[in-house]
């Protein structure tokens, strides 16, 4: 069995253990009951998504400074993995909020800034599909990524002055989280981080291959011929 398959199996196992602990090991929450257990998916996916966007932001700056394509591959890979992670957070949130708050959604600081974050990175990925030349695409989308990253704290603070309804942090000073709950939460975070790393590695390799195909195609074109196999590969790449 290859390392890839082993890693996938390991992450799957870790996720299964985390899910088991979240559903059966963690104690029942006193007032909310069962529905509170969604917290073990909602929070870890959110934290991991922020890790992904932080990687994307740093990689974009590194790309602009060094012009090494690898940084661009890392920037797009982590953004593309981060978006579905935030989607998980945005979907599990309302499922929890409806029975507890009585509403699906409220426009408070955290919810709104997470939603804007999601929209901005969807736009980032969209922008990338609309520029064909690889180096231009890398430069332009890196600048957009930096703007988006600086925008998020501003969105948060501008809405913070409306009263915030989202539960305040229960970890760290002033929190009242049962130690067993914290253990399960950290285990779940570890599992989602492992998933993030696995997906990131896969996506990064796809981007590297895409770049390689493009390079070979340009090389072949400069020699005056595109081998049929390479042309077919490229068409497949673009239709995918």
């Amino acid at each position, binding site marked *: 069995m290859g390392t890839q398959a082993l890693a996938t199996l390991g992450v799957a196992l870790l996720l299964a253990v985390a899910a088991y602990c979240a559903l059966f090991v963690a104690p029942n929450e006193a007032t909310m009951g069962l529905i509170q257990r969604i917290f073990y998916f909602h929070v870890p996916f959110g934290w991991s998504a922020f890790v992904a966007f932080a990687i994307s932001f740093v990689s974009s700056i590194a790309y602009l400074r060094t012009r090494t394509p690898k940084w661009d591959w890392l920037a797009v890979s982590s953004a593309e993995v981060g978006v579905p992670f935030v989607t998980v957070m945005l979907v599990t949130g309302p499922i929890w909020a409806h029975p507890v708050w009585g509403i699906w959604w409220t426009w408070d600081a955290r919810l709104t800034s997470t939603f804007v974050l999601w929209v901005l990175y969807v*736009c980032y990925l969209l922008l990338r599909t609309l520029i064909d030349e690889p180096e231009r695409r890398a430069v*332009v989308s*890196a600048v957009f990524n*930096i*703007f988006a990253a600086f*925008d998020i704290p501003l969105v948060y603070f*501008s809405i913070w002055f409306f009263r915030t309804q989202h539960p305040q942090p229960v970890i760290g000073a002033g929190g009242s989280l049962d130690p067993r709950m914290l253990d399960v939460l950290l285990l779940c975070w570890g599992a989602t981080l492992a998933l993030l790393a696995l997906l990131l590695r896969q996506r990064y390799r796809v981007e590297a291959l895409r770049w390689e195909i493009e390079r070979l195609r340009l090389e072949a074109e400069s020699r005056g011929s595109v081998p049929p196999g390479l042309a077919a590969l490229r068409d497949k790449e673009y239709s995918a």
Partner: protein
Amino acid sequence: MALARPIGILLAKELRTEFRTRELLISTLVFVLIVLVLFSYTFEPTTAESKRFGPGLLWMALLFAGSLMLHPSFTREQSNETLVALRMAPIDPVSILAAKILANFCFLLAAELVLVPIFAALYNLRIVPVLGRLAAVLVLGTLALCIVGTVFAAISSQARMRELLLPLLLLPLLTPALIASTEATVGLLDDPPALSAVYIGVLAAFDTIFLTVTWLFGEYLLEE
């Protein structure tokens, strides 16, 4: 200042180009007027209702106008390939962006000079007692729109579907500026009027942060 002279020259060039045709200014004016009229159908425009909804619709109209009118800043240059000539000039590329930001800022402020009184008249709002403070909000809010809008016009001009792409990139990013300028304007229409220091602070922070980001990273957008 090594930047001031090229910015001044480029700004004069931008203003001259626009005032030869005035097409941007006129179409922006007409567009915002149409939007203001259309919004009046969506609620009963009495003074009380207008105080609640007016500021939001004014800023929404300006935002939409901005996302349309900022687009030509770079496409104009592209059609004649004059951006290449600008880049060959021995100046800091940031000054090209800065001059375009300033020019768009002037255009939009000029449009607002006409639009805001019309808006106040149409929606029965008293702006004369708060004119100075309203001007401060308009200046900060418009600057926010022009900084990000001009930089994103440089981004979208390099992509396909650019007319559609600019509002897509711009509008979500302007969330904090829209909230702050709307809330600050709502405060000015209150009885008694009050200028919220918090929202002025958010606008000033927005302008400062994105001017700095543009200064640090904007030049990459102009390279060939």
